[in-house]
């Protein structure tokens, strides 16, 4: 799941200050689940900004609404009026949602209300950890199911580095050393042979280094003919 965090409110307030009509749009998908941009957060943000405006004597109209999945055009379209009726839209979805609105309404201003963070796994309520960076070429079958690209600060393929103390990462002593964990897991599985040989240089071209990535499922794509049939251009 995509895990995001609300931007500091002063930053949001500053971003929105010059505009008279603001629409804040939440999302019921990932960011609701990670408690960053669901209906509750949107409502609280609207109220908090109104208090701030009251304090500063600023006249600003602020509305809040939520869509099912902000990264999908069809859902965004449902609130088109609210978006276009405002001077600026603050997206409380991940950056995908914000960019979807931006791409759909290029003349309209859409600002991010969240800092999009990680592909996170909920360790416990309120704690999400980055276990994948979407490198595009998964190798965790060889590393005991633990991703060294995401979970090691140096993305080492032949770790652990010399800074691993008490099986913790030198960069953050609270965080487990990914390679210690890989070692332990493989030992448990009796598969240490997997890290006996040198893992060669990784091909990063499937990652973001290869440029903006697009994943296509040819058989799912609608043909030009189908699209016309549905009245979509």
């Amino acid at each position: 799941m995509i895990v995001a965090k609300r931007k500091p409110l002063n930053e949001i307030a500053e971003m929105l200050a010059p505009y008279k009509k603001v629409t804040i749009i939440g999302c019921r998908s990932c960011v609701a689940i990670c408690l960053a941009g669901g209906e509750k957060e949107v409502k609280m943000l609207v109220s908090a900004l109104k208090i701030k405006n009251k304090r500063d004597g600023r006249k600003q109209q602020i509305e809040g609404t939520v869509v099912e999945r902000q990264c999908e055009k069809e859902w965004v379209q449902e609130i088109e009026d609210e978006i276009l009726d405002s001077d600026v839209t603050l997206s409380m979805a991940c950056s995908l949602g914000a960019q979807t609105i931006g791409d759909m309404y290029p003349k309209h201003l859409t600002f991010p209300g969240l800092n999009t963070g990680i592909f996170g796994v909920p360790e416990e309520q309120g704690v999400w950890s980055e276990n994948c960076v979407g490198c595009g070429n998964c190798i965790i079958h060889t590393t005991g199911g633990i991703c060294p690209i995401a979970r090691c600060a140096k993305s080492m393929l032949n770790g652990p580095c010399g800074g691993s103390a008490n099986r913790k990462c030198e960069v953050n002593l609270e965080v487990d050393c990914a390679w210690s964990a890989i070692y332990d897991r493989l030992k448990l599985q009796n598969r240490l042979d997997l890290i006996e040989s040198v893992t060669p240089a990784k091909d990063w071209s499937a990652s973001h280094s290869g440029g903006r990535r697009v994943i296509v499922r040819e058989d799912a794509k609608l043909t030009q003919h189908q699209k016309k049939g549905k009245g979509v251009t």
Partner: protein
Amino acid sequence: MTEPRPKIVGFCCERHGMDAVVLAARSGKQFEVSVRLVQVPCTGRVDGMHILRSLEEGADAVFVLGCLEKNCYYDTGSIEGRKRVGYVKQMLSELGLEKERVEMFNAASSNSWVFPEIVAKMVEVVRKFGPVGGEKR
């Protein structure tokens, strides 16, 4: 009406919280008249939005009053309440507003002195910071 009074809203659980209010009154304690209580079953029911809306709609300060954390009728309700208040405090700080305007309190039903103290404390907060809107009362 003569001079204006601090507008204080309290979200109060109907267990130990309300009992502490009742006991204070029955023990002859007096407290600031301009405190307005909203009864909720448990402070775990309180949503940050309720607190923020109250500030938005004119409250100068808002408090939440629940059971002692170790003796909460709904076990963990007042812990939840505390966390909700904490989150609102953080939001207020981020906006440069006084987080002291919002507070969580806990009471045992047998404490007659707690509630008047809470009210006094919130009155003091409003005295210090004035109304949210800026114009002095």
